[in-house]
């Protein structure tokens, strides 16, 4: 009997001592979430506070949800900090040119297509132009936030001076009253360069976050105090501290890490990507300027975007726009993390601004306008070369 007891205890101690009985941590390169390296202890604490607010806080009627909304939490649109799903796709409406949104009185710019019981959600007014926006991945946004205006302008070519058919331009936007321009921000006739959002309609992560709380969840803050249902300024439903914690969280999420970078297919695919001219807009390497967060200060990173607007042709022209962008112009989306998108989109790709493309190839083939030349070059590749190019994109 004593022997049985000893055996049981020995087995038990052995088993519980073995961490292999618990699921292992996926490789860093397989996950989009996690902080940038080099945060201080206090920054790490703020990151965790923002993480909890972003991923765990679900709003209810009692805590301010709605009454009109799109989603009840940040995390439900950005699972694992990755790209979103058509289930939480946003619809923006009401603006077709740089003169502004003419449907503000009808609830524009964002459609709140869901409502608490007893309330009626919004509908797109007759005749209003609209576009659907799939939620983007959140990763690496602090790096993008810290790129200097000079660097963005240096990549632009509004008059296509080099004659390559590509003429990226910044979206010069009017700042919200609460937005504080970055040190060194360039002011052009009272406008600043937007860099977040499908049309670069948001200046920084404070604006992006405050607007998302307000427009996506119906949560007011001191930054965005107007209830989207009544139009009245009401008490803040989220504290400044929480909102700024979320901003910090978004700012310090790590950049996606490339996988299999040295495999032959990835190396060849990258060469084909550059030969096809894709890299003229999807610029591989950018660098940050000065940042109060040391981990983001003067860093080189690889987002595959130039943060500029490009005419993508009639096929992707929804007739809706923001700021000074034309309706056919879209900000070059960063390609980093593309290969992990399926892990946040329910196992399926939903690519391009509204998720209309279900494969990377489909997304490439829907490129037009300034990207037509690159699309044609892609079409001219052999099947093996196309696969290599896609393998490269999936490694990002």
């Amino acid at each position, binding site marked *: *009997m004593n022997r*049985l*007891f000893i055996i049981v205890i020995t087995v*038990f101690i052995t*088993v*519980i001592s073995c*961490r292999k*009985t*618990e*699921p*292992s*941590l*996926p490789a860093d390169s397989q996950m989009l979430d996690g902080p940038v390296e080099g945060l201080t202890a206090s920054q790490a604490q703020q990151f965790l506070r923002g993480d909890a607010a972003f991923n765990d*806080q*679900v709003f*209810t*009627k*009692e805590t301010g*949800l709605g009454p009109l*909304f799109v*989603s*009840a*939490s940040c995390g*439900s649109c950005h*699972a*694992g900090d990755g790209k979103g*799903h*058509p*289930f939480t*796709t946003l619809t923006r409406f009401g603006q077709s040119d740089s003169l502004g949104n003419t449907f503000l009185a009808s609830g524009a710019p964002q459609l709140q297509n*869901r*409502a*608490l*019981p*007893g*309330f*009626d*959600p919004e509908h797109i007014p007759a005749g209003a132009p609209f576009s659907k926006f799939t939620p983007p991945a959140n990763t690496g946004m602090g790096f993008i936030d810290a790129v200097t205006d000079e660097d963005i302008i240096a990549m632009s070519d509004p008059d296509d001076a080099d004659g390559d058919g590509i003429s990226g331009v910044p979206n010069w936007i009017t700042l919200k009253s609460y937005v504080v321009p970055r040190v060194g921000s360039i002011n052009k006739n009272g406008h600043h360069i937007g860099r977040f959002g499908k049309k670069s309609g948001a200046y920084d992560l404070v604006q992006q976050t405050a607007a998302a709380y307000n427009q996506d969840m119906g949560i007011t803050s001191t930054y965005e105090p107007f209830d989207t249902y009544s139009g009245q300024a009401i008490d803040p439903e989220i504290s400044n501290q929480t909102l700024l914690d979320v901003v910090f969280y978004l700012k310090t999420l790590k950049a996606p890490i490339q996988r299999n970078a040295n495999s032959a297919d990835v190396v060849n695919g990258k060469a084909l990507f550059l030969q096809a001219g894709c890299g003229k807009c999807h610029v591989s390497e950018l660098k940050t300027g000065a940042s109060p967060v040391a981990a983001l200060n003067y860093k080189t990173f690889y987002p595959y975007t130039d943060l500029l607007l490009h005419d993508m042709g009639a096929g992707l022209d929804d007739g809706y726009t923001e700021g000074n962008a034309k309706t056919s112009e879209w900000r070059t989306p960063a390609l980093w993390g593309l290969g992990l998108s399926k*892990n*946040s*989109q*329910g*196992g*399926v790709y939903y690519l391009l601004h509204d998720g209309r493309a279900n494969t990377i190839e489909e997304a490439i083939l829907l490129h037009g306008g300034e990207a037509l030349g690159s699309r044609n070059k892609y079409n001219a590749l052999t099947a093996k070369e196309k696969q290599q190019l896609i393998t490269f994109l999936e490694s990002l």
Partner: protein
Amino acid sequence: MKKLFLVLPFTLLAAAAMAQIDSTLLRRKPKDAAANALNMNAVYNRPFLSVAKLPVALGGYVEANWQHLGTNGVTEGHQFQMRRMSLFVASTVYKRIKFLSEIEFEDGAKEISLEYAALDMEVHPLFNIRGGIVLNPIGAFNQNHDGPKWEFVDRPISATQLLPDTWSNVGFGVYGKKYQDSWVFAYEAYVTNGFDDRIIDNREGKTFLPAAKQNPARFEESFNGVPLITAKAAIRNKRIAEVGLSYMGGIYNKFQDEGVVLDARRRVDVMALDMNTTLPKLNTAITGEWAWISVDVPATYTQQYANKQRGGFIDFVQPVYKRSLMGFEKSVVNAACRVEYVDWNVGKFEVTGGNIADHLLAVVPALSWRPTSQTVVRLNYRYSWKTDVLGNPPIKTAGFQLGFSSYF
């Protein structure tokens, strides 16, 4: 203050009953071990301690555990948890009138609740009246949930995260039993206060019936004035099995207030099927429960909140050693396994036609040692796969749990 009012009478009662008592006067009233005891008997089928000829019997159970779980490589380390302690007080008021109450302290004293406090009056074996705070008889676990009866540290996910066990409400009802040879037929039916709109407006971000437990006012007023109806029929053959079929349903939302119509009447309906049996010769105990939930969620709300849910569990418990162990003559060592599954959102996305996921599967192999039938020491290894609403790769959680639960 409210907690104080709950705790104080129990403390005083216990103190009065126990103070200065000659221990030889204490009598342990064992639980009914009859083979045809039903789940509906569980509330009284507990070991009570009575004092001499006092008409009051006391009892309770406690459960505590250690666990070390990891989720996708991240662990919170060693956790020691005092899950709950329950105190029962039962009394025979008169020949066929009895009263039972149960107060439960969960997670230390983080949550204190009067879980049960009902008076029973037997008019006829087929017609008993019960009133007070009652356990709604939906499924079997809600009525038969005492920790020492189970070989697993965690309660079934389907019982706590799908059904709102332990789910009790103020109300009245009737029940009865009919014994015939090896058979027992039983029924229960209650009208009680019920759910509220938290079930589709909660911090879980999903249709979540247990959220209604957060409404402390449900013991003093109905959220919408419409009774929740709960009914169950069960049949048992002592050589075969017990099978129960239960239903619970009512209006969950506040459709009017002060005479002003606010919304349509929205229903929540739950069906549950439960069974338990012991295989002859092998003595393998099998216990299972499956529930279907239907909720009228407004079409203009988000599909994150489901209008259909389902889930359940099945436990296998195999005695593997029955003799003296470490001086406990009637020790039983069991090998057990629980398989549980919950789908919090049954349906398809309107926008893509794709399946809505939001489900969990868990497998829990276990070893338990019962030095007496009233005490269980249990070692569980839990592995679960939780998939979010979009169907992304599941979050895996696994680890060991070691704990005990005992009546006292």
